[in-house]
């Protein structure tokens, strides 16, 4: 897409390996092995199992906080490992998390004005 990209095409056929060699792909160097990804998936599956089983036992006041914590852990795990944010350039994290935190901020504030949390 970038005009600059075309410069590579001058010397190499489109799609030639050279076009990729230094184009910001460093995932080979860091990131997990396939086995590592499977382990992460198992971890996520276990957390999901815990979440579901929590709904069948009555643990009172701790129910909601534990569920929310599990949700956040799952979220962050997928973002960090499957989406490589943990290994990738910090700019990506900044872009994504600023959107996420902004969303949390404005929408929680809006729900507060509805007295949404007063009843809970």
């Amino acid at each position, binding site marked *: 897409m970038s005009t600059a990209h075309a410069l590579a095409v001058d010397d190499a056929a489109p799609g030639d390996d050279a076009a990729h060699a230094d184009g910001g792909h460093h995932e080979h160097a860091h990131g997990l092995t*396939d086995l590592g990804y499977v382990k992460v998936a198992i971890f996520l599956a276990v957390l999901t199992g815990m979440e579901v089983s929590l709904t069948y036992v009555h643990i009172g006041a701790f129910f909601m906080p534990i569920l929310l914590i599990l949700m956040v852990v*799952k979220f962050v795990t997928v973002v960090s490992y*499957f989406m490589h944010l943990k290994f990738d350039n910090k700019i990506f994290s900044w872009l994504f998390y600023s959107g996420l935190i902004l*969303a949390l901020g404005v929408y929680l504030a809006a729900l507060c004005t509805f007295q949404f949390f007063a009843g809970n």
Partner: protein
Amino acid sequence: MADTALDSPATAGHDDHAAGHATSTGLSNNKLAMWMFLGSECLLFGGLISTYMLYRGRHEGSPTPSQLYNIPLTSISSFVLLMSSLTMVLAVSAAQRRDDRNTTTWLTVTALLGATFVGAQVFEFTEFVHEGLGFTTNLFGSSFFTLTGFHGVHVTVGIIMLMALVGIISRSKFPGDKAEVVEMIGLYWHFVDIVWIIIFTLVYLIPS
């Protein structure tokens, strides 16, 4: 945004003058764009989730959420979507090893798992309608179907992109050629998954 993701797959962002760096930041244009899009999507789903949270208790004229929700079914479909994230990341990993055969396989499996999820959602929606909760029934119905429907549309768009990608890879002459597109669609797919992680907890597991 499908177009962005598929845009110029081979963009490596070369510059003739920048010493050692392809772009000012050294990062791929496509990947930056995708992460920005996902950041922006947080605000979209945030709005839909907030609308649901505000209205979930207003279910006059229909069964309550806890009467309707079929937790075992939704748990299984959630699990399926979660595992599709694994197969997606394996596809990305294969693509980066320039292993097109495995890339194609894992992409296909991902698409199938995604389709299973959407299928379960369609089944769930039909059940709800039978039990008396339509889109127009009440505020709970409108906001529930809008939120989960938006997510379902995202999954469907993802499936279309995955299938198109399988087609594109089969036509490409150079192994690993489309690694960046695979990664891009992977990011989108994982995002759809994490949105579901939130929806699953906030909508299904926490009763109103």
